[in-house]
C-alpha cells in the first residue's frame, strides 16, 4: 500500500531483451526525504531500472510503479516528468551550444511547464543552489566536467522534482569534487527532493544513502542501512569485490 510517507513504490518490475532478463522482479520503496542508494557491478541492471521507471527510452514489460499516488508505468515520459520525477544520465546530456541559463530554462519550460515570473524565479533559485550563477552566460560546451555535472543536475532540479534519479553523478570527478558533490546531494535532499542514487564510488554512495540496495544480474540481492550492507559477507565477496570494500573501510 502506498502511504503519504512513501514517494515511490516499485513492485515486481521486469524487462527482457530476447532471452536476457535485464531487470528481474525488482521491488522497493523510497520514503519522502530519503536517499536510497543502488550498488552493483556493471551490467547489474541499475541504469535499466532507471529507464524502466522513467520510461525513457523504454518502459517495463512487467510490474507496477506508483509514484506519489499515481500509477506511472504506462505513462509517457514527459507526463512522468510533469508529475515530479526527474533523472540524470551518466553520459553528458547538456546542450553544448546553448548557455547555462538556456539549458536550465529548457528544463523549467518543458520539465515543469513553468513560464513567466515563476520560470525566471525557478531558474534563479536553481542557478544559486547549484552554484552556477556566475557561469549563467557561458556556453555549456565550455564548462569543465564538474560544472557540467552541476548543470545536468540543475536542468533536472529546476522542475523542483519530488524524486530525482541520479545515475553515477561522481564519475570523472576527483576526490575533492566528490566531497563537494556529496554535500550537494544532501542539500538537494534537504530542499525537499527524495533521491535514488546509482554510484560506483562506494564511499560517496554509503556516505549519503540512508539505505542501500544491491543488484546483480538484474535481481535485487539485498537492502539495508549502509553499515549492514558494507559488512554483509555475501555482498562483499560475491558482488562488490573484496578490494572495493577494503577501500571503503579505509575511508
Amino acid at each position, binding site marked *: 500500500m502506498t502511504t503519504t510517507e512513501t514517494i515511490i513504490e516499485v513492485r515486481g518490475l521486469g524487462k527482457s531483451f530476447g532471452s536476457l532478463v535485464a531487470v528481474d522482479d525488482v521491488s522497493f520503496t523510497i520514503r519522502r526525504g530519503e536517499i536510497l542508494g543502488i550498488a552493483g557491478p556493471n551490467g547489474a541492471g541499475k541504469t535499466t531500472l532507471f529507464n524502466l521507471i522513467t520510461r*525513457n*527510452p523504454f518502459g517495463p514489460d512487467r510490474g507496477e510503479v506508483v509514484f506519489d499516488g499515481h500509477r506511472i508505468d504506462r505513462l509517457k*515520459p*514527459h507526463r512522468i*516528468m*510533469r508529475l515530479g520525477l526527474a*533523472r*540524470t*544520465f551518466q553520459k553528458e*546530456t*547538456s*546542450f*553544448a*551550444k*546553448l548557455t547555462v541559463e*538556456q539549458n536550465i*530554462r*529548457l*528544463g523549467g*519550460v*518543458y*520539465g515543469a511547464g513553468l513560464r513567466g515570473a515563476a520560470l525566471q524565479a525557478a531558474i534563479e533559485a536553481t542557478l544559486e543552489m547549484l552554484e552556477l550563477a556566475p557561469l549563467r552566460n557561458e556556453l555549456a560546451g565550455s564548462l569543465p566536467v564538474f560544472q557540467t555535472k552541476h548543470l545536468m543536475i540543475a*536542468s*533536472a532540479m529546476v*522542475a523542483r522534482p519530488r524524486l530525482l534519479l541520479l545515475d553515477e553523478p561522481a564519475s570523472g570527478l576527483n576526490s575533492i569534487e566528490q566531497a563537494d558533490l556529496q554535500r550537494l546531494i544532501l542539500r538537494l535532499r534537504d530542499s525537499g527532493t527524495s533521491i535514488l542514487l546509482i554510484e560506483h564510488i562506494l564511499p560517496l554512495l554509503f556516505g549519503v544513502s540512508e539505505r542501500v540496495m544491491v543488484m546483480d544480474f538484474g535481481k535485487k540481492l539485498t537492502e539495508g542501512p549502509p553499515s549492514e550492507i558494507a559488512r554483509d559477507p555475501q555482498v562483499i565477496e560475491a558482488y562488490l569485490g573484496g578490494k572495493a570494500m577494503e577501500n571503503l573501510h579505509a575511508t
Partner: protein
Amino acid sequence: MGAVIVAGLVSGSIYALIASGLSLVWGALGVFNFAHGALLMVGAFVAWWVSDPAGLGLGLFAGILACMIFMVAAGAVLYVLLVRPWIGTPAVELTVIMTTVAGAMFLENLALLIFGARLKALDQVVTGTVKIAGTAMQAQNLLVIILAPVLLGALALFLKLSKHGLAIRAIAQNDEAARLLGIRVEVTYLVTFAVSALLAGVAGVMIGGLFNITPSMGNEPLLRAFLVVVFGGLGSLPGTIIAAYLIGLIEAASSYYIGIYWTPVALFTVLIVILLVRPNGLLGRSA
C-alpha cells in the same frame, strides 16, 4: 555593376529563405526534405488562387495571409504523412529522400491538374522603380531585399527566445537529452516542419511576384538551396544565410560577365574549392 548587386541580393534573399528552412529540418531531424521546392510552389499557388480574380479575387494581402496559414498546416501534414512513420527506423535519411521526392511529384502533378500549365503571376506588392546610389531597380526587388533579412531576423529570434525555438535547437544538438528534459521530440519535429514550410511559402510568394508561377517553379530553387546548405555548412543557420547571399551574388556576377550557360560551372567550381579547404562548409561543425 549596381544591377548585378541588386540581382545577386534578390536571389540571395530568396535562397536564404528557402535554404534556412531546409537547414532547420536537417539540423533537427537529420533528414533532407526533397518536397521543400514543391511546398514553395504550393505556397505561390495558394497565394495566387486566393488573390487573383481568376480565383477567389480577395486581393494580394489576403492571398499572402492565406498562404502563410496554409503553409503552416501543409508543413505539419507533410511531416505526419511522409516523415513521421519512418522516424527511428534504421535508414530514415534514405527513406525520407524517397517519400519526399514522391510527395514533390504528387504535389507538382496535382498543381498541374488543378491549375493547368498556363503561366501565372502574382500582383506586385509595390510597383514602379526606385533609384538608390545611382542604381535603378524595381520597387518589388527592393522589398524582397529588405524583407528577407527581417524574416531571417525573426527566425533567429524565434530560435533564440521562444519555447519551441529553444527546443528545436536543443533537439538538433542532443535529442536524447531533449527527451530527458521532457521535450516532446515528435511535437518539436512537427513545429520544425511547419516553420520550414512557412519560410518556403514566403519564398514562393516572392518568386511568384518577380517571375512566374508554374507547377515546376520549385525545382531550380530547391537545387540551389541544397547547394547553399552544403556550402554554408550542414545545420549551421548563419553559415546557410551567408552562403545564400554569396551564391546569389556569384551567380549574378557570373551570369552578367561570363554568361548564364557557364554560371553553374562557376558555382560548382567555387563550391568544390571551398569544400576542399573547409570540408564541413563555411561554418559547418565537424561530424
